């Protein structure tokens, strides 16, 4: 960061708030040290057990449980690393820069004995800091830590309004104009604007299915925006869908495999968030999402080829029914999961190819889209 040795004064109100919060935390610790008291930090507990699901709100909210980390011989290293990362964050805000998680990991190599030995360690500490600041409404992106992974792919009736990072000039990106490629969501989407007349967003689990629909211009026929999630969607992908659906007031339909992973991990995380990151659900969840398919009923209605459920699938499904506040709230979901367990099978979205490669866009999706009211919540 030698380029930014001279720190420009921070004028932005949001940035000022972030710096104030970091200073406040550090000072709390410093004052306790001066008083010969053991320093302490309290983090919200990040687990499904500390998650509330409010249907009106539409996403997981983190509960009141806190874990207190008291400084001791065992925690001194983590404490030092936490404070180091916070110091780095303050510097990033002051210099109007950012660091990816990997960057932050390498920055730690300057901290001598407090350095991280693997990125998992720095990621874990960063998650703690994020949780700590999320209680006062500061997101990780505002702390200037950006995820490494970008967000997924977009094709369809949408113009993204972006800006050039160096020149600050506005750029208009037409998502219909990528030919056989697609627009790739960047790691931070906070500054985006959108223009669209699409009627819905179709969020797709696999890159393969996305390619088929994009290549055959399904977005044109159905007047929609296609988003490929590639498994569990990344933060920026979720944030992108969330902001787009919020600002343009369009629904989100989710099209994933019919198995406990597609339902309880991909769909649930997109819609309401996860237990581990409930503190960021308010930024990243997409409460307007609905489950288009593949549903357990579809397996029968469309006579799809199946595979038997694996042990891990069954464990996941049982866990969802027993511990997940989202599924516990929605009767139709409980019935659907029970049904899937009863059938003992799972079906991939690409199983539709049994009836012809384009059956999915000629037959399946149009039939499902005729009755969006029947989508699972």
């Amino acid at each position, binding site marked *: 960061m030698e380029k930014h040795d001279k720190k420009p004064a921070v004028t932005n109100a949001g940035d000022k708030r972030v710096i104030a919060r*970091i*200073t406040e935390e*550090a*000072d709390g*610790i*410093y004052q306790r*040290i*001066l008083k*010969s*008291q*053991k*320093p302490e930090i309290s983090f919200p507990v990040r687990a499904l057990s500390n998650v509330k699901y409010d249907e009106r709100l539409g996403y997981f909210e983190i509960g009141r449980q806190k874990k207190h980390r008291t*400084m*001791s*011989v*065992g925690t*001194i*290293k983590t*404490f*030092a690393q936490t*404070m*180091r990362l*916070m*110091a780095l964050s*303050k*510097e990033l805000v002051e210099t109007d820069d950012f660091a990816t998680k990997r960057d932050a990991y390498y920055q730690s190599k300057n*901290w*001598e*004995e*407090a350095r991280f030995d693997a990125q998992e360690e720095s990621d874990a500490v960063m998650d703690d800091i994020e949780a700590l600041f999320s209680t006062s409404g500061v997101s990780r992106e505002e702390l200037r830590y950006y995820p490494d992974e970008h967000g997924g792919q977009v094709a369809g009736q949408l113009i993204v309004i972006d800006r050039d990072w160096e020149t600050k000039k506005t750029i208009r990106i037409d998502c219909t104009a990528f030919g056989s490629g697609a627009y790739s969501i960047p790691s931070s989407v906070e500054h985006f604007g959108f223009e669209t007349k699409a009627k819905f967003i179709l969020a797709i689990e696999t890159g393969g299915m996305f390619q088929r629909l994009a290549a055959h211009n399904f977005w044109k026929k159905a007047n929609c925006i296609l988003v490929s999630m590639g498994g569990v969607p990344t933060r920026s992908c979720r944030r992108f869908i969330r902001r787009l659906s919020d600002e343009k007031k369009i629904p989100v339909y989710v099209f994933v495999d019919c198995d406990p992973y597609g339902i309880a991990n991909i769909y649930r995380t997109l819609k309401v968030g996860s237990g581990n990151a409930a503190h960021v659900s308010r930024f990243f969840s997409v409460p307007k999402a609905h489950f288009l398919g593949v549903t357990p009923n579809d397996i029968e209605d469309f006579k799809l080829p199946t595979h038997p459920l694996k042990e891990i699938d069954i464990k996941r499904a049982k866990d969802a029914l027993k511990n997940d506040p989202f599924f516990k709230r929605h009767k139709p979901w409980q019935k659907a999961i029970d049904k899937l367990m009863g059938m003992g099978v799972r079906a991939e979205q690409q199983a539709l190819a049994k009836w012809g490669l384009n059956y999915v866009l000629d037959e399946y999706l149009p039939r499902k889209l005729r009755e969006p009211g029947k989508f699972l919540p």
Partner: protein
Amino acid sequence: MVPVKKAAAKKTGAAKPAARKAAAKKPAAKPVRQTNKPAAAKAPQPALPGLETAEPVPAAVAETKPRKGEPPARRTAIDMAAAQREISVAEFFTKNRHLLGFDNPRKALLTTVKEAVDNALDACEEAGFLPELRVELIQTAENRFTVIIEDNGPGIVKAQAPKIFGKLLYGSKFHRLKQSRGQQGIGISAAAMYGQLTTGQPCKITSRIGAKHPAHYFEIMLNTQKNAPEVTRELEIEWQPEHGTKVEIALEAIFQRGKRSVEEYLDQVLVANPHVTLHYKAPDGDWSHRERATQQPPIEAVAIKPHPYGVELGMLMQMFKTTVARNVHGFLCHEFSRVGGGVANEICAAAKVPASRPPRNVTRQEAEALYTAIQQTKIQRPPTNCLSPIGEELMLAGLKRLVPDAELYTAVSRVPAVYRGNPFLVEAAVAYGGKLPCEEPAELIRFANRVPLQYQQSACAISKCVTGTMWRNYGLNQPKGALPIGPLVVTVHIASAWVPFTSESKEAIASYPEITKEMKLALQECGRRLGMHIRRQGRLADAEKKKSYIKTYIPQLVAALQDILKFNDKQRDKAVASLTDILERTRSID
């Protein structure tokens, strides 16, 4: 000859003419003797287990039965009878020397030293002398050695010496139930025979039984056909020690160091026998002297009668023939330990054999009924004074001789237990830490009646128990089914009037459930104590680690705070001092 100065020597004038190995008292059973009866008429001798296999007679008789109506056989039974003759024990073992531990020149050297040392120690202890041994190995040619073993024991009376060293299966220890190193009366004469076979030289013995007696020197050859000694030279000589025996055997051998070597064996002898002083001279070195670690002689073992549970049917039938008792009731009371009038009546009633029946008239069926009845009758455990355990204190003293600078020594002596009517006792000791290698499997030292066992480790009940113990529970690494890894020496000793070896060469102990149970209990107790030690070490190391942790990370934490809060270096130092103080305080509370 180096004079052996011993306080005990004063008593030697009164030294009973006890013959080592030779029976001091008349044994109940007849001494084993090779007879000249025709082999065909010979019944298997129960006192010679395993030797029946050397009798080709029954098979030969069956084959040569003349058959009617068939052309005459090429050879008649009479012809064949001419070729049928007795095989002497010595001849048998000449061909099967591996059964006694003379498989190869290297092992032969070890076995020879071992047999001589075992005998010397048994003799010294039986006569009540604290043993002082001289073991000398002299290389005379590339593969030729002379082994000289000298003890300060009671000596051997002139008449017995030839038989002891020149006749196999001759001894005092086979027919009694009492803990001793030797059991069968094969070892030393087999060593002498091996020497004779490989070098043609006689075994040379010098012995003196007391100050008032002259010393005798013998050269003894073993007639392998007759299993009988031939004294080729006999002299009265001047010998400085007042009592003791010196054995000199020349043999074909190879001297090596390391695992399963003579030197390892001697080291281990000192572990199990802390009361022994040893002078040793290697073929390529000077005399080394190791003083005894204790003046306390081992507890004297007492010979006991057999316990009914330990007697097999054949043995029982033999005993009926040789007993002096006039009826079965008296027989049971007189010949066995722990059988009183009540128990004897109970056995007779259960077997439906009249208590008044004279033993000679007991039929095979009745004997079998009695045998079964014995197994079903509740009989008190055998007396345990036939055992001479090393004891926890001396186990430790012995182990310290081998591993002088370990961190932890601990030993466990179990109470006596019984297998098949034989009392036995298990002791275990471990040494841990210090300069022992950390990354290698533990060293296991096995003892039976104070004798180190060196071969066939994997077949031995002791090894099975050590590898079967869950050392992980005590803080050591242990690959599945193997010895634990770590700076550890494990010793296990089994003391018994009759140690159940898996073979005549006495290399491994058979896995009787009663024995393995005791071994495991002893090892587990050692393990628990070891575990406590290892955990305590772990805690101390943790505390050290914590201390350095504090020193490492406090400056880092305060530097981060300084980055954020921009305080000056003086404030920084104050914060470091204060935080160090806070954490040091919490550490002492932990």
